[in-house]
């Protein structure tokens, strides 16, 4: 069932590139902690005229949470905060290309978008 959980594209992404980055002069910083697994995320966003112009994150987590937090970038940059908060769980999972996550792994995949929705 989890055979394509760790598909090549995600592994290429997480293993090959430096996916974490600091945003210069962020005006929104969100921190989140998953007490079940110990994942910690610090998401930084810089907006101009209400539009997200830069997005980055730091922290530790599993492959699923790291990849999903990174991939959120393309969904957020150029959008308003309101639009960013409207990114749906299904959209996030479609970006990840995984449709068979168990409930606890779903939390990993949706950690970043849920933090953005709840904390901005």
């Amino acid at each position, binding site marked *: *069932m*989890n*055979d394509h*959980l*760790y598909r090549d594209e995600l*592994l290429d992404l997480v*293993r090959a590139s430096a996916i974490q980055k600091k945003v210069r002069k962020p005006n929104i910083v969100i921190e989140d902690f998953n*007490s*079940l*697994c*110990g*994942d*910690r995320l610090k998401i930084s966003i810089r907006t101009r005229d209400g539009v997200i112009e830069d997005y980055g994150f730091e922290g*530790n*987590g*599993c*492959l*699923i949470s790291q990849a999903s937090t990174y991939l959120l970038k393309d969904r957020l940059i150029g959008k308003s905060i309101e639009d960013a908060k409207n990114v749906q769980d299904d959209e996030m999972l479609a970006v990840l290309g995984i449709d068979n996550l168990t409930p606890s*792994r779903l939390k*990993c995949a949706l950690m970043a978008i849920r933090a953005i929705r709840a904390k901005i």
Partner: protein
Amino acid sequence: MNRRADFPIFDKKVNGKRFAYLDNAATTHKPGCVIEATSRFYSSEYGTINRGVYKYSEMATEAYETVRKIVAEFLNCQKSSEIIFTSSATEGINLVAYSWGLKHLKKGDEILLSVSEHHADIVPWQIIAGKTGAKIVFAGIDESGFIDVFDLKNKVNKKTAIVGLVHASNVLGAVNNVKMLVKEVRKKNPKAKVLIDAAQTVGKIRVSVQSINADFLVFSAHKVLGPTGVGVLWIREEVAKTMDPFIGGGSMIKDVKQSGSIWNDPPYKFEAGTPNIAGVIGLGEAIKYLNSVGIEAVENKDLKLTEYMIEYLKRFEINFFGPQTAEDRLGIFTFNIEGIHPHDLASVLDTEGVAVRSGLHCAHPLFEYLKTESAVRASLYFYNDTQDIEQMFNGIEKAKKILRVK
């Protein structure tokens, strides 16, 4: 000794693979006799307890009270009235925190805990400390993962009101010499009460409340082959007499008037409401089964499997927390594979039919102390075999390949 066949769940495949269950520190599986006993109670013996004069109620009351005696004997406790049934080990500690703590703790008193306590033996005390003005003090662990007796002794003083100690850590596997620790605490402050969290040791090694000589001890039925929703709290009789009830309701009173109530005697004083009767009966059956296997046989099997696990971990050059030799520990192994997040490893192992725990294991202060973000935990019980361990290591090899780690 191979007892795998006694557990119906192992007839099942997991993700098409043989089921290798290595999360016994979290919960244990149930032998057929326990499942049958609870089912039989509901299908042909069901009744409530302490409330009816009709046959099934009387039978249920007798069965429930018989389990109290079975548990007392299992813990080498002389008075079965010192055994209280709760909903979990966690509830047992909360009961002590509220019923003893709220009554006896005052501003400036100290609650001394080890840093290796499970959240269940930390958070209730934080709540009660907030209500009473008492202060929580932590004692450290030594290099091997045992509660540091010198640090503990140093931190016991006149203000120490209660000491909470884990018998065996659910992360480190280290079995603390609680008998000696209790003695040392009492030497420095004879008035201090001591609570032992024996959730990881009861059913794994012989636990005697008379020998340990603490004031409170808790364990959980579901970790000793019994059903979920039942915990056991032992309270020394003299101490129980000084405590207030925990929750109010039926059974815990002798008389109720509009102007007030008179509490029942322990253990009933602490058992308000209709309890988990089927669960308690299941616990009784679980202990009977464990007695038929023999605790010494359980211990020996755990020791052999622990030695086998250590051999493999060393061969794979995997560092694990806690004592490095089998004699001083239980089969609870917490470790990390470099380059693989614990959740990812656990997910791949799941596809191989291997169940392990990953995360922080309800012990955040300990992980902070160990400077570790999270870890994988594989924990054994006597129904495991060497094949389960081999299956896990084959799974680790597969995870390394899938996740591209050397």
